[in-house]
Structure formats: structure tokens, C-alpha cells
């Protein structure tokens, strides 16, 4: 171990004529700490992209790549001619738009009202309770939803006892209710969590604005409307743009777990189509084509909203 001074001299002289190899030796620990994971990311995240070629082949499992028969866009045409595909597209878009309408706005409303609570302990308790469902799996949430909305569940009992309805509402078995059940299950699960970011934005608003407004005689609603809401607008817009970019990526977990044979027609989304028709019935090429379609649409959405965002807010999401 050289003395401190000698060590310093050594490094600086190294820096003068740094060769490529010297850098590698010098940074060997950083290389050891990151390159194995680069390999991991290539294998598990990039290598599967190779599988996209399947969509253009009459893919036969077990056959080597060069012996597969290439069929061009055949499977995309089959896909676009499949009425089931348009049904799942309708469901995907319907549920993502409902999710945007409620899952995006209600957390903002919650944040605005939580912010008006002066009693800190009460506020913390409410926050702790509303964040909680975010940490539960959809399996658990689906089980709770089945219990709450079942024909003899608490909600139906409550509605019956109030006399709002004469007989139990078939929330879970009537196909037309499915979109709403999924949307509100999602709101219930995520409202508290999604409000965090807006609460953080509210905390960043200059308190002097509120003082000035109070002097001018503004009430609570007016301050909320004219100061808090405009104050968090940049955050709102960024989150809105990011949600639009993810419109088609609504996943399949909640639909998979909440659907019943009776509601399938309104429950199946794009990813479930891939799962059921692709992996389930071994139609790999068709399933891959649907997956590629999804990626292309979501990339187009992402780039469009990114450009939109740059123009309107000067912020990029990419």
C-alpha cells in the first residue's frame, strides 16, 4: 500500500496516457458489478424479441429456425379477420378508457380533499388505510370483490335493506356490468396510492399564495379551485400523458381473475386473447402477431404523446 501522496501521483500519471486496457483494469469492479446483469438483460429482455419472427412463419415447435416456413403477413391477416380479435380490442379500449376517466381523476379529487384536512393524525390514518389495497395481489382483491358483490354479499344486502332494489343485482354474472366492476375494483385498489404523487405536488405549492387568497376573502372551495388545482396542473398533465401512452397496456390479471364463463364476452382483453389462443391452444404465430400489434400500437401512442407533451408542456416523458 503506497503512502497517500504516492498513490495520488500514480493515478494522475495513469490518467495522462489512459489506454483502453488501463481503463478496464482500473474499473474492473464496476465492470464485475454491472456486466453480468447486462448479460442477464440481454438474455431475458432482448433475446425474446427474436421470437417475433414466429409471427411471420408457419411455426413448428422443435424445427430449427432456417427450416421454418416463412408466410409473410398471413397471420396478421388472419388476426384482423378474426371477429374475436375485434371483440377483445373493444373490451381493451373500453376498460382502459373507463380506467382513464375514473382511475385518473378520482385520485386527484382525493388528494385535493385530503389536503384540506387539518387534523394530521386523522389524515395519516386515512392515507394509511387507502394505500393498503395497493399492496395486495389481484388474487386477494378478486376474492374480496366476489365476496362483496355476490348475490348474498354485503352490497346486495345493503341495497335490499334500503329498498333500492327488489332483488339482488347480478354484478358478477351480467356481462354488461363487467367493465364497471373492473374499473371500480381498480379504483378501490389504487386510489390512495395514485393520490400520493398529487399530494406531493400540492406540498410544493407556495403557501403565500393561500395567505394572499385568504386576505382577498377566498373560501376553501375557491382556494382549491384557483390555487391548488392550477398548482398541480403540470403534474396532472404529465401523469395524464403517461397514462395515455399506456392505454393499451392494461394487462390481464384483473380481467382473468374476475371473469366468469358468463361474462367472458365482455371480459377478455388483448393479453387474454394471446394467452388463451396463443399458449392455450398452441397457436404461437397468431398469438405473437397479436403481441406485436400491441407493441406497435403502444409505441405509436408513446411517441405521439411524447411529442404532444413536448409541445404543450415542454416536458418529455421519454
Amino acid at each position, binding site marked *: 500500500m503506497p503512502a497517500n501522496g504516492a498513490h495520488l501521483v500514480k493515478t494522475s500519471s495513469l490518467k495522462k496516457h489512459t489506454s483502453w486496457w488501463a481503463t478496464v483494469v482500473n474499473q474492473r469492479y*464496476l465492470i464485475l458489478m454491472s456486466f453480468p446483469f447486462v448479460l442477464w438483460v440481454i438474455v431475458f429482455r432482448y433475446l425474446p424479441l427474436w421470437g417475433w419472427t414466429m409471427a411471420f412463419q408457419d411455426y413448428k415447435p422443435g424445427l430449427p429456425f432456417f427450416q421454418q416456413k416463412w408466410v409473410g403477413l398471413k397471420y396478421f391477416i388472419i388476426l384482423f379477420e378474426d371477429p374475436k380479435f375485434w371483440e377483445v380490442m373493444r373490451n381493451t379500449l373500453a376498460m382502459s378508457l373507463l380506467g382513464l376517466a375514473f382511475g385518473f381523476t378520482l385520485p386527484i379529487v382525493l388528494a385535493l380533499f385530503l389536503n*384540506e*384536512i387539518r387534523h394530521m393524525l*386523522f389524515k395519516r390514518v386515512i392515507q394509511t388505510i387507502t*394505500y393498503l389495497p395497493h399492496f395486495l*395481489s389481484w388474487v*386477494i382483491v378478486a376474492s374480496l370483490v366476489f365476496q362483496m358483490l355476490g348475490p348474498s354479499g354485503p352490497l346486495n344486502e345493503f341495497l335490499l335493506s334500503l329498498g333500492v332494489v327488489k332483488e339482488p343485482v347480478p354484478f358478477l354474472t351480467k356481462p354488461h356490468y363487467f367493465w364497471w366492476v373492473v374499473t371500480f375494483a381498480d379504483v378501490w385498489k389504487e386510489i390512495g396510492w395514485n393520490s400520493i404523487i398529487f399530494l406531493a405536488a400540492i406540498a410544493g405549492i407556495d403557501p403565500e399564495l393561500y395567505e394572499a387568497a385568504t386576505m382577498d376573502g377566498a373560501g376553501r372551495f375557491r382556494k382549491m379551485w384557483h390555487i391548488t388545482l392550477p398548482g398541480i396542473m403540470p403534474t396532472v398533465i404529465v401523469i395524464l400523458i403517461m397514462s395515455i401512452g399506456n392505454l393499451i397496456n392494461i394487462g390481464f390479471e384483473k380481467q382473468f381473475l374476475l371473469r366468469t364463463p358468463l361474462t367472458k364476452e365482455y371480459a377478455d382483453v388483448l393479453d387474454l386473447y394471446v394467452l388463451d389462443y396463443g399458449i392455450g391452444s398452441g397457436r404461437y404465430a397468431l398469438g405473437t402477431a397479436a403481441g406485436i400489434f400491441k407493441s406497435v400500437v403502444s409505441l405509436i401512442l408513446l411517441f405521439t404523446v411524447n411529442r404532444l407533451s413536448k409541445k404543450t408542456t415542454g416536458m418529455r416523458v421519454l
Partner: protein
Amino acid sequence: MRSVGVKDYYRRAKLGDTLFNAFNYTAMILLGIATLYPFLNVLAISLNDSVDTVRGGITIFPRKFTLENYAYLFSYPSVVRGAVMSVLRTAVGTVTGLVSTAMVAYAISRKDFFARRFVTGIFVMTMYISAGLIPDYMLIRSLGLINNFLVYILPGLISAFNVIVLRSYIEGLPYELQESAKIDGANDFVIFSRVVMPLCLPVLATIALFIAVGHWNSWFDTYLYASSNKYLTTLQFELQKILTNVQSQAAASAQDIYSYALTEQARRVSPESIRMAMTIVATVPILCVYPFLQKYFTRGLVLGALKQ
């Protein structure tokens, strides 16, 4: 005249304030109840005699208290196996995931690291590109990970989002600390483990919580990749199987927990009570860690989101 007007004004403002508060507190309490009630109801049913439950009307207290449903649940082999496997995969997955995330995040936080842009780029890209369900499935199959414990650990080892959050946090620390350690002769690995990571504890706790919750809650990888190996079953997957039975209302196959219930102890436990007990068992571990880590994750998340 004027002073009366001002008084009147203040009285009105105060009334408006009171009404606003009354409305706001009521709304928040209702929201709290709407969030908690399902848990309390399910807990009550899981602790209630299952024959009595059929009469309906259980709210948040059990009417005929019993632990029978839980005793029965844990006498069922696949539930015990599922519980052990859930704990095991969460422990192994969290440790490996956290260590890997930390190493990558540290390397790309170093401005002098020659491959910094390349490594950052290759991870960030994964946030926008994914091959899709079928290519992923084919990869897992050709790597021989089907029905293999490693399928729980390897494919989801690192999330690019967590890497970016941690990197931003490290970059916010004073770099002088690393430099002085370097002058003292510490190598990059020592600086990472002895100097930088101890300062990252709050954000590491947040990321560990996210990873652990992800592992605990996961059922789809079991469903897709490991459902024919009974030793790899998890609690969430067992609950999912029960749910699927509820939905299809089909006669249960000889393998699953319902038929077991029907054949052996039909008069003492019902499928519904079992499902409630199972839901609670899958929830409880989260309820246990949640209160302790809550202060970390709000801070960590806000930080990560703002730096993004």
C-alpha cells in the same frame, strides 16, 4: 354599517368552513370504511362457524367464533407447501433482486464509468420494449426453466424502474465521500458496500418492500410455468385455483381443496369459509410489514417519481 357587514361576512365564511369540514370528514370516513369493510367482513366470516355463515348477515364480527376453518386449511398439504414456497421465494427473490439492483445502480451512478451510458441505455430501453407473452414463454421453455424454482427468481431479477430510482438517490449523495474513500485506498466494491449503500438505507428499504411484495403477490408465473410441479405451488396460486372454481361453479376435480372439503369434513367447513380463510392468510404478511415501511415508501416513491 360597515362593521356589521364585516361581521356578517366572517360569520358566513365560518359557516362555509364548518360545512366544508363536515362534508370532507364524512367523505373521508366513508372512504375509509369502504376500504376496510371488505377485509373485516372476510375476516369475520373466516372466523365464523361455516354452517352458521350460510344463514347470512355476518358483518364485521363473527357470530359463532371458531378456528376450525383455519385448522382445516392448514391440514391441507398444498396450502402448507404453498405457504413454505411463498416465504422461500420471497426471501430468496428479495435478497438477490436487491443486491443485483444495487450493483447496477451503483455502477451507472459513477460518472467516470466508461460503460455508463451503454449500461443505463440497455436497462432503460426495457421499460418501453417487451417481447410479449409468447416469446417470453418460449424463452423460459428453451432455457429449461419450466417447473424449476429458478423461474421465480431469474426472469424478474431486476426492474429498470428500481435501478433508476436508486441511481438518482446515489447521485444525490455528496461524491466527496467516495473520493475520500478512494484516496484511503478503498476499491470500488468496498466504496459501494461500505460507503454508499449504508447511506441508501431508506431507499433500499423501499425497493426491498416493492420487490418482496411483488414476489409475495405473484401467481401468474406459477400458473404459466410451474403449475405441474406441486412442490412449486404458492399461496396466491392456491387462492387463484379456489377462485377459478368459484367462478366456473363446476364440480371440483379430485385434486383440489374443495373436493377434499366435501368428502372429508363437509359438515364442518364450507368452500366459502375456506376461501375467506385463505384470503386472510395471503393478506396477513403484507399487513404485518406494511405499517413499519409506510414512511419509507412514500418518501422513496415521491423521490423516484420527481427525479424521473
